[in-house]
């Protein structure tokens, strides 16, 4: 690997890391509450609400059904408003975040669904407030699942971030497309793909370990 390529690679890695850091952070910060919201408003739960369920379900489905490229375009005005610019890794991160939130929210919801209903009921029978139940039952009991879902989300966002090159976001996936594909530098393609695979396996490995450690059952 030539020194320039090495350099290029380093920058791309930092760009990817930056995009993931932002989008994963916000996917968690917004996706977890959203996922909890979806769960606690579902049938039989303490804030049961068919209306909220339908609305949020529809919004999530809508976001998930729009191709990422289109999402990128549709979100440009918003990106401009929030990030101040419509290009670069930070701008790309906004679209990644918007794609990541409903994705993770659904996974959070699914993890929460796997909590033994009886445990939640027992907490309710104690007279615990919804907030206490969320903090002391829902989150701890689903920790392992939440981490597992996070792993999946990070990997998916990594995959989406390959398209960030469209708005000048750069990153590893973009490197593979620009040099490996457009400029026929097969070794770049090979290196990036191997690197991506390695990265994914690493994320998966760390995620699995953390999830296991969190599981007290």
């Amino acid at each position, binding site marked *: 690997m030539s020194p320039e390529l090495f350099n290029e690679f380093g920058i791309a890695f930092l760009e990817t890391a930056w995009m993931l850091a932002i989008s994963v952070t916000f996917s968690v910060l917004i996706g977890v509450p959203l996922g909890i919201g979806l769960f606690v408003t579902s049938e039989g739960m303490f804030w049961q609400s068919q209306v909220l369920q339908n609305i949020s379900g529809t919004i999530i489905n809508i976001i998930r059904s729009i191709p990422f490229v289109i999402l990128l375009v549709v979100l440009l005005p918003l990106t401009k408003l929030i990030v101040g610019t419509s290009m670069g890794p930070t701008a790309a991160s906004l679209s990644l975040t918007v794609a990541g939130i409903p994705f993770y929210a659904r996974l959070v919801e699914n993890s929460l669904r796997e909590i*033994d209903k*009886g*445990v939640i*009921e*027992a*907490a*309710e*029978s*104690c*007279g*615990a*407030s919804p907030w*206490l139940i969320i903090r*002391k*039952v829902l989150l*701890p*009991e689903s*920790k392992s699942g939440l981490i597992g879902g996070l792993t999946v989300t990070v990997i998916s966002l990594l995959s989406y971030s390959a398209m960030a090159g469209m708005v000048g976001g750069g990153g590893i996936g973009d490197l593979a497309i620009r040099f490996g594909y457009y400029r026929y530098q097969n070794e770049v393609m090979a290196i990036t793909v191997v690197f991506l695979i390695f990265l994914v396996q690493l994320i998966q490995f760390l995620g699995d370990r953390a999830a296991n450690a*969190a599981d*007290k*059952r």
Partner: protein
Amino acid sequence: MIELVNVTKTYENVTAVDNVNLTIPKGEIFGIIGYSGAGKSTLLRCINLLEKPTEGQVLINHTDLTALSKLEVRKERLKIGMIFQHFHLISSAKVYDNIAFSMLAAGKTKDEIKERVPELLEMVGLSDRADHFPAQLSGGQKQRVGIARALANDPTVLLCDEATSALDPNTTASILKLLKEINERLGITIVLITHEMEVVQQICHRVAVMEDGKVIEVNEAYELFADPQTPLAKQFVQTVHSLTLPDRLLAARTGSIVQITFRGHSAEDSIISETINRFKVIVNILHGQINYIQDRPLGILIVEIKGDAPEIKRAIEYIINRTNHLEVIANVS
């Protein structure tokens, strides 16, 4: 005191609880029995509004829970502990924190919790397990944590849904002992569902029998065993009093075989002994069971009475006189 007034719970097409009226006075241990699907769990869950009744009122100490806001219901629940068949402990929290949770729910301070939890652990005999996770406990130990949790906020009512069904006889016995103690020492009202008649026998003061969502019989535990009113209750009681004699035995007997039921005083008097002294008969006890239900004896004996026919007849008349309950099973002579 718990009062259920016309409580009905309907799911789309099933009436799980059908117009139930019950009054359970303070300090009583009240049992609920019935077939699977009879509506026992649903009824119990209506008491702390885990299941909101479709119709009717649930009054606890004269407060109508069904008329309260969600927040107020939560406050009332602090006074109602609940114990579950499958424990339902928070698997990610240690024993200590499982119990502390219940106190957090009541808004207790850290200090109060620090003081109370060890007391509770002591009471259920788990002081050395405070730092264990539920997965590291045996079934009986998990159930004790469940009890400690349910008692943490000094409730006045304890609801138990088949709390001992999954446990071995020893553990069951120790948990029943604990419940009885709590009831006697703290005067807590206990409502419990069970399918084990020995549990009813050992600790219940009164019992409701449910069928198809309806309470078809409410009886003193003693009376339920001594004189069940409904066919269903009879069937359930019979599984405990299954006094069937082996054919071999029946065939070999030469006297009259009678089943005598001794209730209350009659059980404490020496009727058999007196019969033997008064009449020229030999009385041989073939089968029998004496149970103390709420400290009152209920005895059923199957005896063979041998002797001359007229003597036997007089002996039988005497026994009937003293017990009011005698049934001739076989009359050989």
